[in-house]
């Protein structure tokens, strides 16, 4: 997205050009539907994401929104049907950048920390291999020192205590730290986190988020944080992009997106997310845009998505334009952008100013 206004970089100043970006990527999967006919699942349509040094971008969406597909395209599990991935401005098409060189710069953190560590190997082996493979350590001594240094960087202290542990001897949070340490061993510039905390216990999630924030601040890593939990995205990230049914609908600086959402879907997502501060603040209940009890339908079938803006069947403001074509991007001075006809047609006042969201308990039939 070269036309995205880049917000003031945080920390270092060499972050104007993105490290890794997806430019207009789409991914269509051919599947066989129930009737036995071939169908095309349009998992991602024309998505653009730019990751900058020392910044964290959150990609927020429900399951089936295509956010994991984006992560997997960036992780080169498969090539995009359209569009391209660029690393430092260089296209990463077949033959462009070898996988090995790509993964020197870009590493992925999986959702399930137990599944992504081989249960039969000690921490020392897993981390040591990652170091050796990239020539960051050769002798026994160097490997040991390197592993200890990695463990220290992910706050597993004292590191000596974790060297000879098997994954099953570690707690979920500790395992995810080892997974992050393995990714760091490669000395990447970009980390892609696909729901990295959703399988961890609640009380240790923040620890892992704080660790990711530390890596951004101290080591200048660029991070993509994929999540369904918009509150954690606000806590960790600099920028939030919202995805619905394969389309990026809104994005921008986090506070702008959360405090004044410009897309009806973002509003729905925010209104639906639990926020005790809201409902327990007495007397804040007023009619929201969406009455929580109303029947809002469900996300569409990606094999047969609605035409135009895919949110229109659930949108209270849907107009004829919404059914016909996907709107152009509307940009705002603070860097926020949205794909919504309301802004193209001068009906944005329907959305703003956002009335305080309705609490669950105040809902009455």
């Amino acid at each position: 997205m070269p036309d995205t206004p880049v917000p003031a970089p945080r920390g270092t100043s060499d972050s104007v050009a993105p490290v890794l970006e997806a430019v207009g990527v789409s991914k269509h999967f051919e599947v066989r539907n129930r009737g036995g006919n071939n169908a095309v699942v349009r998992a991602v349509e024309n998505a653009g994401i730019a990751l900058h040094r020392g910044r964290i971008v959150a990609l927020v969406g429900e399951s089936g929104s295509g956010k994991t597909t984006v992560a997997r395209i960036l992780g080169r599990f498969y090539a995009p049907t359209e569009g391209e991935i660029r690393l430092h401005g260089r296209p990463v098409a077949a033959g462009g950048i070898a996988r090995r060189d790509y993964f020197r710069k870009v590493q992925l953190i999986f959702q399930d920390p137990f599944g992504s560590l081989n249960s039969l190997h000690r921490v020392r082996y897993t981390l040591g291999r990652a170091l050796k493979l990239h020539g960051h350590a050769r002798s026994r001594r160097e490997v040991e020192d390197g592993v200890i240094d990695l463990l220290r960087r992910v706050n597993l202290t004292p590191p000596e205590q974790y060297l000879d542990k098997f994954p099953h001897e570690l707690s979920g949070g500790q395992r995810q730290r080892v997974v992050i340490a393995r990714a760091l061993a490669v000395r990447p510039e970009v980390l892609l986190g696909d729901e990295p905390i959703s399988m961890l216990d609640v009380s240790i999630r923040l620890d892992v988020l704080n660790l990711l924030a530390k890596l951004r601040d101290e080591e200048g890593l660029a991070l993509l944080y994929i999540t369904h939990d918009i509150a954690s995205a606000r806590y960790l990230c600099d920028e939030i992009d919202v995805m619905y049914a394969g389309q990026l609908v809104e994005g921008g600086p986090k506070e702008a997106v959360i405090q004044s959402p410009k897309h009806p879907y973002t509003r729905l997502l925010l209104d639906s997310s639990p926020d005790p501060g809201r409902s327990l603040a007495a007397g804040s209940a007023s009619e929201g845009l969406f009455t929580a009890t109303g029947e809002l339908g469900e996300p569409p079938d990606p094999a047969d998505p609605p035409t135009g803006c895919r949110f229109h069947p659930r949108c209270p403001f849907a107009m004829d334009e919404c059914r016909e074509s996907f709107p152009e991007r509307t940009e705002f001075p603070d860097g926020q952008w949205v794909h919504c006809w309301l802004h193209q047609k001068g009906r944005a006042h329907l959305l703003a100013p956002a009335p305080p969201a309705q609490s669950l308990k105040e809902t009455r039939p």
Partner: protein
Amino acid sequence: MTDPALLQVDGLSVDYLTPQGSARACSDISFTLRRGEILGVAGESGSGKSTLITALTRLQRPPAVTSAGRIVYHPADGEPVDLVAQSERALRRRRWRQLAIVMQSAMDCLNPVMRLGAQFTDVLRTHDPSLDRAAAWQRAGELVRMVGIAPDRLPAYPHELSGGMRQRSLIALALACDPDLVVMDEPTTAVDVVMQRQILAQVLRLRERFGFAVVFVTHDLSLLLELADRIAIMYAGRIVEIGSSADLYHRPKHPYTKGLRDSFPPLHAPLRELSGIPGSPPDLRDPLPGCAFGPRCPRAHAACEQAVPPLRTVEAQDVACVLYDPQNPEATAHA
């Protein structure tokens, strides 16, 4: 809270028996659930919250056994009964009619080879043999409409429904025989936030209409704070704090409650650095002599290691922490 008691749990303990000895998954749990009340039970994995659910409904499987305590159920008409002492047959008569269960995974609870409607009529006609087929189908239609599913979906098989619909039909199925108590074990973890909110709003609306009580178990305290009337916080098999949602949110007493509350970043309130709770939960097979939270507690001191603190009433809530022991010199009344 003038509603009469529906369920009185008193000193309930559940053990998992292993050849190496037993592990106490629930320890000395006591609480009272009133008619029409929503009690949230929050805890992390291994806190015993799911064990508590299976013990309340007497659905636990070996090697779990209820080793102590009583679960006294007060029916609307008739004498109170202790569910722990009931035979399996007597219990079967109470399930659905008086206590119903909604589990986490709808796909595991619905029969995949039976049409949705047939699963409803099965339940309805088992508990009311006088109901004929047509009337039962009619009633099934009313039930699914209650949770926002069109009655014309009744002939569908479970796999033809979306995840949200399956979960909602499970709730409708639980309400089929108008129970007094619905026990819900993480009923919305498998669905998205938007659907989650719709389902919970429906539960609240139906509770308003039918007056059933709910025990709602989840790891998501932020959700419970919005949903529940009262919340019990569990840690290592014990209730460490129980009180109203507002009190627990604004004035948490137990350091664990405080830590858990601060593990959920706010959506609108100003951001500040949060830390979660360092460390990991204890091994239930090898319990500590004192407070199980001690090793992770920011305010731990010598008194914590001496004995397991009992639940004490402090202001509006009950809390199990030595900081509120009047005999403890370290205690601070308003910690």
